[in-house]
């Protein structure tokens, strides 16, 4: 293990240690907020597998998130607690199944087509829950009794929910880290870099992409499940394309090609959102928080094309550039070649 690998793992260990400690010194608001962000982080990791890992830009990730959430609520009995043992797998399976169907169709297309087709299929799912009485229409539905696992895990307390989400986050992170280092993950990376060459070397790339797409949908379904159980409520907005866009912003803001980028991005995005929503800072203007968020996204795309993960390296190179009396630290002032 080289130095960079070590510092990466140290960063992740510290990150998860802080998440474990947070409930001990934050109030209920903090627990709820960080819980929500951790769910977004799982959601962002699911998309990172596709975009950063495989090079497939999916703009319909919210559909899988929403399906996981709706299944959690729809399958829960009215007045009794459902067992986590089957409810969670059911939600994950349903989201994965929809991803399999959508993926098998949309992976026939490439590039911008793929972006648009995934968006359109997500919109179709949105209309199904929005226009039919199945999921309470545009009002959504409530989850009256939260699921539990015998008497071991009861998700009706915010603290238990918090640690359950954290455990899921850690497991998903480790699973994806192992997966991306496996032979399968290497094949995905090969597809991302040059799909044609992969095919020329004898890989049938379609099944790999479809597997990644299905897996990604299933993980997004897990995130949706957690969201529904935490809030006890689902509505069609969970499938809206704004959420698909937001999760894309998260992984790019954090830095593509790094799993920890998805985590950092989810936290940065959510905190940015909370910041612009803060009435203490912006007063009445806080209800127009989308404006600040939108401008920040534009600024981030312009100034940080490699994401927050790259920020230390950028600062370092700028700093060493200043120290050695070279202002054009990004190389732009230097003649090329």
């Amino acid at each position, binding site marked *: 293990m080289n130095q960079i690998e070590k510092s990466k793992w140290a960063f992740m260990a510290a990150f998860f240690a802080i998440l474990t400690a947070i409930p001990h010194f934050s109030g209920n608001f903090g627990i709820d907020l960080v819980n929500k962000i951790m769910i977004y982080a799982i959601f962002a990791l699911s998309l990172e597998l596709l975009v950063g890992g495989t090079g497939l830009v999916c703009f319909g990730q919210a559909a899988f998130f929403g399906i996981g959430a709706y299944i959690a609520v729809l399958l829960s009995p009215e007045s009794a607690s459902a067992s986590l043992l089957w409810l969670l797998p059911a939600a994950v399976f349903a989201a994965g199944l929809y991803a399999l169907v959508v993926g098998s169709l949309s992976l026939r297309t490439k*590039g911008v087509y793929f*972006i648009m*087709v995934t968006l359109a299929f997500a919109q179709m799912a949105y209309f199904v829950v929005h226009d039919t009485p199945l999921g309470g229409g545009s009002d959504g539905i409530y989850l009256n009794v939260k699921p539990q696992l015998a008497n071991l895990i009861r998700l009706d307390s915010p603290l238990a929910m918090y640690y359950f989400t954290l455990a899921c986050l850690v497991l998903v992170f480790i699973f994806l880290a192992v997966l991306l280092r496996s032979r399968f993950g290497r094949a995905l990376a090969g597809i991302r870099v040059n799909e044609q060459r992969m095919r020329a070397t004898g890989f049938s790339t379609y099944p790999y992409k479809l597997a990644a797409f299905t897996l990604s949908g299933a993980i997004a379904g897990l995130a949706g499940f957690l969201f529904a159980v935490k809030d006890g409520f689902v509505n069609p907005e969970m499938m809206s394309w704004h959420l698909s866009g937001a999760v*894309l912003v998260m992984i790019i803001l954090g830095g593509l090609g790094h799993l920890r980028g998805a985590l950092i991005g989810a936290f940065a995005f959510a905190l940015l959102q909370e910041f612009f929503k803060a009435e203490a800072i912006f007063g009445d203007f806080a209800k127009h928080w*989308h*404006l600040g968020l939108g401008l*920040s996204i*534009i600024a981030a795309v312009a100034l940080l094309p490699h994401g927050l993960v790259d920020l230390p390296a950028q600062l370092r190179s700028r700093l060493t550039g200043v120290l050695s009396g070279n202002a054009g630290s990004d190389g732009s002032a230097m003649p090329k070649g």
Partner: protein
Amino acid sequence: MDITTFLIQCLNAVQYGLLLFLVASGLTLIFGIMGVINLAHGSFYMIGAYMAFALTPIVSSVFGGGFFAVLLVGVVLSVLLGYVLEWAFYSYLYNREHLQQVLMTYGLILVFEELRSLLVGDDVHGVQVPDILAGTLQLGDMMTYPVYRLFVSAVCLALAVGMYLVFTRTRLGMMIRAGASNREMVQSLGIDIQFLYRVVFAAGVAIAALAGMVAAPVSSVYPGMGSQVLIICFVVVVIGGIGSIKGAFVAALMIGVVDTFGKVFLPQASGVLVYLLMAGILLWKPDGLFKAG
């Protein structure tokens, strides 16, 4: 369904299809020529619709003009808007990855939505049909049809024909087509490609805004109308084939028919029908009906 209702629904389908074509053609032009995937294109449609609502009292008190003066002022304003946006944002996106284009234009949608909310609020508004175009037309024995809807179809059709003529018959169109296929070559021939792109973009914005303006009395004006039209336009572009104006035309009319008759026969499933159509066409032709190039 008797023959009269059927004919009326056909006219509605054509009117909706032509309107979609206008917005989708701008989307596919900007992508086909400048290589930019513009999520904010639906916002230009929304901006147009809100202009029809907000400009009417101003234009009538300043110029004393009616609906057509509003259209004229709106088009001028949206050309300016397009010109400035290209200079401020889109010109940075030409050589960027699709992903970054998606992100920056997603950011722009949020900005446009909030500015709209700040300037005119979040209420749903109706826009009055102008007096000259109010009323209905007697078609045959038992059928009447609103004049204004025919006007919308006529405007859209005229613009479509105009665009086709500019592209195929004029020097400007030739330069634009050449610029789309080889930017460097056109530039080295001494043509200001930057200016050309700015013109194409401004025209795309103006056409989308004009579509929004003429649609406003038919569809009313509401927050979120931009993203709704954008996603349907994506379906149009996917079905027709990216960059193909002919494809966009055929696909938009198909969607007009499916959506209009879907609302009549299968009201519960109407939201989903166009996506099923898209799925079916993709199974058959993954690159759309008329793949460009």
